[in-house]
């Protein structure tokens, strides 16, 4: 063969796989209309594509594909122990999409899913039905955006807007939408809803540049947070995961000082602190796919199937970041996991 040439990856979402069952769903049509040049491929079930054997997550990240599907069976789950419930008794989460348009080195999705491709479940009405059933039994606190970043995808599929429209006026239902995006403008036309919490994950600029590929810079996130607060939305700040690396003290100090120089502390709903933690099997898979990553190969310790920093380091991180946050927030507004 002749010499190696440079190659270009096909743009992401060059191919859209559509389940036969949802090909005429209004959300499917709306999404497809945004990608007129994409190759559309009909499939029977999203797992035919998403769960193929031997897929390479790192390779697929060069050109992610979109899969449009209907989620069957149960769609709302009890909140996992590794996640913060923020004092809510009935903590649930749901995954309207699988995977994310960003690519953070530490993201557990890289170990959880067999594929980097993005699945969007368009049957949002079935999600609403299940929430209705739960609400008949008890109030519900529901996290929407753990296994994806819904707000980052709002211009591809307006799921956040639909959820906000659905929860508006439902006093027994609170939803959290977690994001690293700078896409607040996709919601800014909506009146704020008191039972919707927009939760921004914040990291030092050094972390964003090194480990949070494709995500917006800190300044843009802060600007978005400020706009959301000024418009009357409830905003949560998530310092999670806090990473341990050279000079971390300094970088997190700068982050929190900068954050509260832009955002008024008294207007923050609450904040959370969590160190990097990941289930054993996910880390094992990530180590196979991404052989040289400072984050993935850190010598974590395992406790109850979860890998995290050694206790001493964990305590030091949490203690320090908590101290930084206490300069601005009362203790009842700071949640630690």
């Amino acid at each position: 063969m002749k010499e190696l040439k440079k190659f270009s990856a096909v743009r992401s979402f060059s191919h859209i796989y559509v389940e036969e069952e949802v090909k005429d769903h209004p959300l499917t049509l709306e999404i497809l209309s945004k990608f007129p040049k994409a190759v559309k491929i009909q499939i029977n079930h999203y797992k035919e594509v998403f769960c193929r054997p031997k897929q390479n997550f790192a390779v697929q990240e060069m050109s992610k594909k979109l899969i449009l599907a209907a989620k069957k069976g149960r769609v709302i789950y009890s909140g996992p122990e590794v996640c913060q419930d923020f004092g809510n008794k009935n903590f649930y989460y749901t995954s309207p999409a699988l995977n994310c348009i960003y690519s953070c080195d530490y993201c557990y999705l890289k170990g959880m899913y067999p594929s980097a491709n993005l699945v969007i479940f368009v049957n949002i009405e079935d999600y609403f039905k299940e929430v209705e059933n739960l609400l008949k039994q008890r109030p519900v606190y529901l996290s929407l955006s753990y296994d994806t970043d819904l707000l980052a995808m709002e211009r591809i599929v307006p799921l956040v807007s639909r959820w906000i429209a659905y929860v508006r006026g439902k006093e027994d239902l609170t939803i959290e939408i977690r994001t690293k995006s700078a896409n607040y403008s996709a919601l800014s036309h909506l009146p704020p809803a008191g039972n919707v919490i927009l939760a921004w994950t914040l990291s030092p600029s050094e972390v964003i540049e090194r480990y949070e590929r494709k995500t917006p810079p800190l300044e843009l996130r802060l600007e978005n947070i400020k706009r959301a607060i000024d418009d009357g939305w409830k905003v949560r700040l998530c310092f999670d995961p806090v990473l341990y690396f050279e000079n971390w003290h300094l970088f997190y100090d700068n982050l929190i000082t900068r954050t509260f120089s832009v955002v008024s502390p008294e207007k923050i709903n609450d904040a959370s602190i969590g160190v990097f933690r990941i289930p054993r099997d996910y880390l094992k898979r990530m180590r196979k796919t991404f052989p040289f990553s400072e984050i993935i190969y850190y010598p974590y310790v395992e406790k109850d199937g979860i890998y995290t920093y050694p206790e001493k380091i964990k305590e030091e991180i949490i203690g320090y970041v908590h101290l930084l946050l206490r300069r601005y927030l009362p203790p009842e507004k700071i949640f630690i996991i």
Partner: protein
Amino acid sequence: MFFIVTAFHAEAKPIIEYFGLKKVMKPCRFQVFVGESVALVESGLGIVASAAATSFLLTEFEAGAKDAVLNIGICGAKDSSFKKGDIILCHKIINHDTKRTFYPDIIVEHKMKEAVLETFSFPVNKEEYPCSIEGDVVDMEGAGFFETASFFLPPHKIHCLKVVYDHLDSEKVEPALVSELIRGKLPLIEQLMSSISSMNARVSEDLIEKESELLGIVSQNLKLSFTMTQQLKHLVRYYLARHRKLPEALRDFANVKVSSKNEGKVYFERIKEILRR
């Protein structure tokens, strides 16, 4: 290495000439041709033959992480949107008999048309065949090839490349014309192969041979257990992620030989300290 599976010699011939492949003179069920970075097998007609030849080729040459496999051959197109001589990169492959479907990952840019390939176990004539044909193009090998190749390689390293020969109207297959049509598309095929190789090179590789060798020596000399050796490898990767190259101090441990496991543990603790820096 690129592995290529063709059904007939007329399909293989232009590829053999283009890449300067030599016939492997070894008694075996399939005709195999090998060059510097390409190995080709002629499977014969049909799904099972293609599956058998694919399995043979990938096993015989011990296909691994750096390899890719292509099925190159002619096909029939269902309608006139595909012209005779068009080359198609198949993005979905259907086995007509089992209804199983296969999807290659199309990651690199290419200059081919894309379509759905449906593999039948019998020749299809559009006029005579009573049921609907789901694929855009039709062949008799692709699904067998793909399903088998999936046992060996990831979906971004398996592709079916089909050149349109007819429009399912039972046109007589002329070997010379088959070779000519495929020969004309080889520069495009080579471009795709080159892009796949470049993509391969960009994906982070694990420890290189030299590093693995050094770790093997250290592990053996210090009488490290399997778990400790794994820990050592993890710490080396952690170190490499931060410093790009191994610490010189680690090489010194290759010259140390311990007489007991306990002694080895003492050295291991020192290595861990170095690699965590």
